[in-house]
């Protein structure tokens, strides 16, 4: 019995090149949205029906005198028990058995958007205001079922993102955290048992993004 796939996002290796953000749009044929600079490099400023992956930037002073500048490549966590599915009783949202990917179907039009979004501990689902359909990362379902890795992982130059069989990814995550703990006592893998998109952080998760570790 397969345990499906996982994506590991090792933020300690992320350089904020945003290749993943662009690759997501490219593969999924999503349009560039109209943005303006809001006093940060982060853009778009939030997920939307047209933006399923964004690089969140956060910064501030730190104890050693240098600032901290953290990069968090946000996307759907593909939960083992997806909260978004609580509202979806008629197959609007599917959890694929083989891969574990959580897929929003066109039937999500009929879902209660607010409740579905509320059900996600990471606040990921977004609605197309015109069609009412809900959208988010599909783990590149069309790619991973055709022997390709997700577009975001493919684009990552530093190895911050890796994709593979879940047990292997869990093993890699564990080893990496162990390694990082030597320098960063707060290093950990976020909710590794509950999600398929596992983030490794080296500091308090809230310093990366308020919902990095969930609600």
């Amino acid at each position: 019995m397969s345990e499906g796939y996982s994506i590991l996002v090792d933020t300690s290796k992320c350089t904020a090149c945003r290749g993943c953000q662009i690759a997501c749009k490219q593969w999924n044929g999503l349009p560039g949205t109209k943005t303006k600079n809001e006093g940060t490099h982060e853009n778009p400023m939030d997920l939307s029906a047209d933006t399923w992956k964004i690089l969140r930037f956060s910064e501030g002073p730190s104890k050693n005198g240098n600032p901290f500048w953290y990069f968090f490549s946000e996307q759907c966590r593909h939960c083992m028990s997806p909260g978004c599915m609580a509202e979806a009783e008629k197959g609007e949202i599917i959890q694929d058995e083989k891969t574990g990917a959580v897929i929003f179907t066109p039937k999500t039009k009929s879902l209660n958007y607010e409740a579905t979004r509320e059900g996600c501990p990471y606040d990921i689902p977004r609605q197309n205001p015109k069609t009412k359909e809900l959208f988010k990362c599909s783990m590149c379902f069309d790619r991973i079922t055709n022997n390709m890795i997700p577009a975001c992982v493919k684009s990552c130059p530093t190895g911050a993102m890796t994709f593979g069989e879940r047990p292997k990814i869990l093993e890699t995550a564990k080893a990496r955290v162990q390694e990082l703990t030597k320098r960063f006592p707060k290093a950990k893998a976020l909710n590794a048992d509950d999600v398929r998109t596992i983030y490794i952080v080296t500091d308090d998760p809230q310093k990366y993004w308020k919902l990095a570790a969930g609600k």
Partner: protein
Amino acid sequence: MTNHWIDLKNSDCILVMGSNAAANHPISMKWVQKAKDNGGILISVDPRYTQTSAKSDIYAALRSGTDIPFLGGMIKYILDNDKYFKDYVLNYTNASFIVGPKYDFQDGLFAGYDPKTRKYDATFWAFERDQDSRVKRDTTLQNPNCVFQLLKKHYSRYTPEQVSSITGTPVSDLLKVYEAYASTGTKDKAGTIMYAMGWTQHTVGVQNIRTMSIIQLLLGNMGIAGGGVNALRGESNVQGSTDAALLFHILPGYLAYPRANQTNLETYLKAITPKTAEPMSANWPQNLPKYFVSLMKSFWGDKATKENDFGYGWLPKLDVGQNCSWLNLFDAMYDGKIKGFFSWGQNPACSGANAHKVRQGLAKLDWLVNVNIFDSETGSFWKGPGMDPKNIKTEVFMLPCAASIEKEGSISNSGRWAQWRYKAVDAPGMAKPDGDIMVELFDKIRGLYKKNGKFTDPILNLKWDYVNEKGHFDPHKMAKEVNGFFLKDTKIGETEYKKGTPVPGFAMLQADGSTSSGNWIYCQSYNAAGNNMARRKKEDPTGLGLFPEWAWAWPVNRRIIYNRASVDLNGQPWNPKRSLLKWVEGQEVDGKKQPGKWVGDVPDGPWPPMSDTKAGRYPFIMKPDGLASIFGPGLVDGPFPEHYEPLECPVPKNLLSGQFINPTIKIFSGAMDKHLTCDPRFPFVGTTYRVTEHWQTGIMTRWQPWLIEAEPQMFVEMSEELAKLRGIKNGEKVKVSSIRGVVEAVAIVTTRFKPFQVGDVTVHQVGMPWCFGWMVPKDGGESANLLTPNVGDPNTMIPESKAFMVNVTRMEGGA
């Protein structure tokens, strides 16, 4: 790069300074990360806490334009603390050379300076030579006039406290960096530098790099895996364009461009060909005549003969002292001296320093040809801000060209690897590959010359056979020509080469007209073995990531240059764990000893190691004396790097000497050549940089919705302290101005910029990207180069876009 991208993984300590590699060379971080995974240390030195800094183990801030004090302090630290690699310094550098009695250094000036011409007479810096013309040496390094002692004396002034008072870097941060980097001065450690435009774009740009070169030599980091001096090139294939001499002062393969006083081939070759009296110096440049004559044969084929100096007389000559680099060209254009301009694959209206002057210069032209894949601020300058099309006579032609993936050819990366690319798709519409545009253009020019041209020989005699049967430019024919051919049956050693055979490598090129080569350093790239640039084998015999059969690297597929310095005098690697090269003695066969050989990378020449005092050769084969230059490589502004303030700076004096700015820079003095220093109207240091999302001026990326979505608008980054001082809120629009112009920008107020404590003065610095322009997107903002000064490094004339003075204010009435 002396080394190459993958080799970064072999480093124990990576200094990123004058570069923000994570943002601007994202893939480099793959190898930096591997070095870190192996226990290597990453140091980031930058005025701003960057994406690279965010990944670093050690970060230090410095005020823009103070890299020489920062690094000069490191030289002093290395010498004071005995951290240098003694065997290396003694045997492989000119540390032991005795400098002549005319050399001196007083209060910021070297001997030989003429204030009238603002030039040095470099003969004042000459080495002492014996009756055989050999440089005198003191191998005890004690002679007060030897390079080592002069170096010590020169940098004795660069104490941590003094450096700190100039750079604004806390002393403790300086020492952290010095200690970490100096720890690579041992046999088994490698330290490397990744630099980019943050070092070159200064009035002391070349000397910034020289300072680091001295450090690398002191620590024995040149020529080794994980070491070197690595320039991260700022444009795809800019390495190739430099190799191919897309510059005014050189011919392909870095051959000096002929000057008007070099009236015939003999005088020219004599001037460019160095001599040596050192028996153990290979002095490889002694072969330059072979390369030059082969180039002439490539240009003019059978028409280039011994009798006509191989066509030397047909080459246009530069006047003595003439400098046709960017700033001078646009100065001449502004003065109306240039009538026509091909702007080919560039966007000077946004990329040129003091871009207002550039734009005014374009308006003085009779014609402008804009070759690009999109329209640009250059092609449409006549309808740009402040321009009245009715008053502009310039006729503009737009030639759409093929993008990189729409044509076949080679591309050379920063690591000197020439990699062949296939064509993926046809160019859209009427767009053509650059080669086709040139072929058509030349056909027309040749036609006009045939009809009624004057001095037609250089044009009509050109060999020019790079087209295929359909009349299109043929990149394979061109690449083979660049490699070169035997032009008659030739026997070299035991091997016979038939006329028309490709030359196997540049060692076989001849000065008698029997070979051709369009670029000697690329000889071997496309030979009898085929197109070596198209190779894609993934074997890595050394385990160091050299991948010798992946593509091809100049010269002669050497992946790390100066690699003879990676071994000791007996040819054994300093660090056997990273064995780049190794001399293996020959076995005895039938009582006869076979010759030894090098194993590993392609060595810098076949000679045995230095312990063989007859056949052995010194490692730095491109230097006439065979040893690396700690002192004086022939720069116009001095034999040792010395700190001078940027032309525009925030401090009233140079704390290290009475010489305020680089005494040899050219200062333009026309109506639009303004600059100000310590002027209260422009109190803050400004600098420019790039973002990952945009390419150069953004000419290709600003049209791309996903990229413009991620970085949509011109911004200016500033510290919280400065924002408070000016009452600026994060995200609001502000005005950034210099004496040369004003741009609007969104304020990014950040903890990643901090004010500098420079002596008694608090210095604020701001930074802007230069990837925007008025054309697209509509609310994207303007180019930061409207603010930058048109003053250049005296050696390269690269503009000082990294340190200048600005003001930042709220928009009137707020925003």
